[in-house]
């Protein structure tokens, strides 16, 4: 849907900051999250997980466990059909088949009358493992002679296809031009290799679900998820059920960030429930979340950029190696596509290698793949600026992608807001603020594609003129408030007169997952269309009530009005007036939209970061942080700011202290919030935000997704700031104090 008014927009409600409709429930404890639901006769489900990083499962003996009083059902690989095709890897991740592929891989599950019994039962299950050599490092896994996870994995994207299996799933390449020629033209070249560790989305709510399958094969699933339709489809396939037989209700979700876009425990809970004939509730412990949900990749990133003395970049080249855990599908492709997306380059290339290792299967984490490649590129840009003697913001301005730029990943950009964010950074007081001793400043830019996707909404007019809006995308960031704003804006009624709910899978058509920063864009677009659809119908009813042609009726300020003096002298009819008599004019009034939303606008962000280092210990603290990001049109500015701040802070954690630590035995050493160190309130300053609005021509209100772009720049913004404060280039994250102290100690004196 194109932008309504390219010359300028004025809104009555959109852009304001009303209270969110689900707020009261969430501040009183009334809101129900994944683990908050119970059912009569409910059983407790628990999973048995491999303690080995890599092992053949020779046999699983459940006899003793099944005999324990209080145990009602046990499932293993024998209870799940072998699946080929798209869901093959997901099904093998949910329940191991011939091999356990990581520390924490599910091998069996029990449903019992209480937790104590379930725990006892797990201890009684005898698994015969044949321990195999393992590999957890991405570069080690690529070497010939590395332990091979899948005997049927042959590298795609290379010519010729290898005859021997390996851990290298695929090679991707993006770019255009001739990088060799470009480097030959350069006056200054910087080439660096970076390393980043795996991190977890860190949502505070562990995965949880309550499954209930009757012996007629009808199933109900309550689950915290970013996409209940996807969960329905995947679970139905894995259990051999018709899709229509499974109704999935999305609970309130306590954080997702991409990690709840797939299934882990849900098919298991359904299988246990089906076998036991009782509802089964499974809640992951925090340890299980770390060991066995979907963290993001660890990676090595090699970047080479060349430029002329005047700052014009002549070539950019990158090689990315990401491990996606035990199955193919790391986001290295998106990492490679987005690596140079902020730059207007004639010669650019990004190669990505997707590698498997004995770690949990990765899941999306907020702008998957992009923060890692941006880390490398933005640090090299910083160093290039230093070598040329140019301000890093000026260097970016000189090379910033703009309308008409052929992007590094293929498409040509339309109207984009990158320059606007860089200019805003330059003009921001943070940029000029003086720095104290042991402090350093870093700047970085970032990009995200943003997505559209399959979306349905149903907008129903109630008898009193209020509106019930049913959407199919779980609310992961406050989107219900934005939907109410857009519906109310279109209908010309008050914000409080619209109630938005997230419908279950039986009540509405298919909706893609809440991911890719697509919800405000897609569900918003569908809401706008549905509202316009309803308005047409309302005008039609008014026309009927007045006995005039529907063409002679217009909608203004929440009322149907005759379109002109010739149409008749009728007093305006409100939504309530028309709704009250709807039974007599044709029945219930509703607007619908089923769409595959297109026209999502890419968004860019520029971040400024100041850190202070204690030179005797390497202790590092962010002392000032500013996020400047293009939102196209901020529907609810408070929640847009919230996305900017949340993404920035996840990036700060990723840059400074968060990492998965594996031992030599291939086991995860820090599966808890004690030693997996996310930022706490005392670690941070206020996070300043600037919302830039360069309207997206593909959306009626001009909006662009905002949820993901904000996590792309911080890794480099923080690294550049630390490098400046420590006076030594940091090339590995997280930059924990021992690493910083070591780098400072080893740096040549300047």
């Amino acid at each position, binding site marked *: 849907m194109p932008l309504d008014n390219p010359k300028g927009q004025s809104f009555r409600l959109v852009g304001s900051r009303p209270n969110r409709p689900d707020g009261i429930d969430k501040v009183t404890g009334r809101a129900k999250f994944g683990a908050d639901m119970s059912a009569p006769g409910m059983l407790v489900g628990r999973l048995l997980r491999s303690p080995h990083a890599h092992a053949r499962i020779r046999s699983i003996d459940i006899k003793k466990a099944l005999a324990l009083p209080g145990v009602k059902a046990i499932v293993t690989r024998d209870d799940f059909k072998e699946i080929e095709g798209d869901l093959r890897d997901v099904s093998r991740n949910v329940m191991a088949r011939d091999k356990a592929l990581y520390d924490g891989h599910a091998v069996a599950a029990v449903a019992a009358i209480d937790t104590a019994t379930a*725990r006892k039962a797990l201890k009684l299950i005898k698994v015969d493992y044949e321990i195999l050599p393992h590999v957890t490092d991405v570069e080690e896994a690529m070497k010939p002679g590395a332990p091979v996870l899948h005997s049927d994995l042959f590298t795609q994207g290379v010519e010729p296809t290898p005859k021997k299996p390996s851990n290298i799933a695929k090679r991707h390449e993006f770019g255009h031009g001739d990088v060799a020629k470009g480097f030959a033209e350069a006056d200054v070249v910087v080439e660096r290799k970076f390393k980043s560790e795996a991190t977890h989305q860190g949502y505070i709510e562990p995965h949880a679900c309550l499954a209930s399958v009757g012996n007629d094969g009808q199933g109900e699933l309550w689950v915290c998820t970013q996409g209940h339709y996807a969960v329905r489809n995947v679970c139905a396939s894995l259990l051999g059920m018709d899709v229509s037989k499974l109704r999935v209700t999305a609970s309130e979700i306590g954080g997702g960030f991409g990690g709840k876009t797939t299934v882990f425990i849900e098919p298991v809970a359904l299988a246990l429930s089906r076998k036991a004939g009782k509802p089964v509730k499974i809640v992951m412990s925090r*340890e299980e979340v770390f060991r066995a949900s979907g963290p993001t990749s660890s990676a090595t990133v090699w970047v080479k950029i060349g430029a002329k003395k005047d700052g014009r970049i002549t070539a950019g080249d990158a090689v990315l190696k990401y491990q996606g855990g035990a199955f193919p599908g790391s986001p290295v492709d998106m990492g490679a596509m987005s690596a140079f997306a902020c730059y207007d380059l004639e010669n650019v290339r990004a190669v990505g290698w997707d590698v498997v290792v004995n770690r949990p299967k990765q899941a999306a984490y907020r702008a998957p793949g992009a923060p890692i490649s941006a880390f490398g590129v933005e640090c090299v840009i910083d160093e290039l600026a230093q070598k040329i003697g140019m301000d890093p913001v000026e260097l970016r301005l000189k090379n910033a992608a703009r309308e008409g730029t052929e992007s590094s990943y293929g498409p040509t950009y339309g109207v984009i807001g990158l320059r606007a964010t860089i200019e805003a950074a330059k003009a921001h007081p943070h940029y000029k603020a003086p720095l104290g001793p042991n402090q350093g400043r870093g700047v970085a830019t970032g990009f995200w594609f943003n997505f559209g996707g399959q979306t349905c909404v149903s907008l129903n007019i109630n008898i009193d003129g209020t509106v019930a809006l049913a959407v199919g995308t779980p609310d992961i960031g406050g989107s219900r408030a934005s939907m109410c704003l857009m519906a109310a804006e279109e209908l010309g009624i008050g914000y409080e007169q619209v109630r938005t709910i997230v419908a279950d899978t039986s009540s509405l058509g298919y909706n893609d997952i809440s991911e890719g920063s697509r919800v405000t864009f897609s569900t918003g677009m569908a809401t706008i269309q549905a509202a316009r659809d309803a308005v047409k119908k309302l005008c039609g009813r008014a026309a009927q009530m007045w006995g005039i042609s529907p063409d002679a009726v217009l909608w203004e300020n929440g009322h149907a009005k005759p379109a002109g003096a010739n149409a008749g002298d009728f007093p305006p009819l409100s939504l309530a007036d028309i709704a009250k008599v709807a039974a007599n004019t044709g029945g219930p009034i509703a607007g619908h939209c089923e769409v595959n939303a297109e026209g999502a606008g890419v968004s860019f962000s520029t971040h400024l970061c100041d850190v202070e280092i204690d030179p*005797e*210990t*390497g*202790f590092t*603290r962010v002392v000032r942080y500013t996020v400047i990001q293009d939102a196209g049109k901020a529907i609810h500015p408070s929640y847009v700011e919230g996305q900017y701040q949340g993404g920035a802070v996840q990036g700060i954690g990723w840059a*400074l*202290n968060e990492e998965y*630590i594996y031992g030599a035995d291939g086991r995860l*050493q*820090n599966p808890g919030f*004690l*030693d997996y*160190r996310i*930022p*706490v309130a*005392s*670690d941070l300053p206020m996070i300043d935000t600037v919302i830039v609005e360069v309207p997206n021509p593909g959306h009626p209100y001009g909006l662009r997704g905002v949820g993901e772009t904000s996590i792309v720049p911080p890794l480099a913004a923080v690294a550049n700031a630390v490098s400046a404060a420590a006076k030594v280039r940091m090339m590995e994250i997280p930059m*924990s*104090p*021992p690493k910083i*102290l*070591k780098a400072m100690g080893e740096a040549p004196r300047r």
Partner: protein
Amino acid sequence: MRYEAPKTTKEAVALLAKAKGLAHVLAGGTDLLVRLRSGHIEPDLVVDIKRIPAMGKISAVANGIRIGSAVPSAVLGEHAGVRKAWPGVVEAAKLIGSTQIQGRATVVGNLCNASPAADSVPAMVAAGAKAIVVGPKGRREIAVEDVAVAPGKTSLRKGEIVESIHLPKRPPRSGDAYLRFIPRTEMDIAVVGAGVSLTLGPDGVCRQARVALGAVAARVLLVEEAAAALVGTKVDDKALDNLAAAASAACRPIDDKRGTKEFRIKVAGVLARRAAKVALQRARRGK
């Protein structure tokens, strides 16, 4: 598992002495419940000491201050008397975990958990604190540094329980301080901890000092060479340099997910120095 909440120390000792199987003392529960939940321990008996009045008290006694074993850090931190006499011990106790943890965690529990990285222990060792142990055979007093023998293991015998900590009377012109290194600003287990207590003479010369380091060996170390570097000096920069060097030299740390050997050795010296400076300031300010 059985739960008992005795009303006297005698009852608690009797329960522990005759317990068949594994018995644990429950004070704040901030270590015990974590190990219980994870399945690391499966006690047959848990003895909750928080209903024993004697264990919940902080009292001034003739030769110092007695802190009952069930006193949470938060309560310790609110006690003006202890704060004034031993600010280092209090600040150490107040560094354990979060506000929520502070509401429950006790310094005695911290001590008896016998983690090499326990925050309150270096400060108590530096202060010369004693643990009052009550058992089936009666009472005894041991130096706090002799409670932990190895990670997770104490020198207490079956049936014995620490009833309280005794902090000595604070001599004039004394000060103590505790600093720790953690990568964030809160919530982490100490990567290195340094507790320093010193006493100055009227001429400003250091008469007595105790320096204790945490998280750099299997137990908290009382570093006599580090203390010796201060005694007889005015705690000037040179003395502090010697102190730092002695502290670093005494470390026997490991590489683990919280820090490397080199890092701990270096930072031990840095923190010992900084803690000594704070202790010195407090000593100069004191009576």
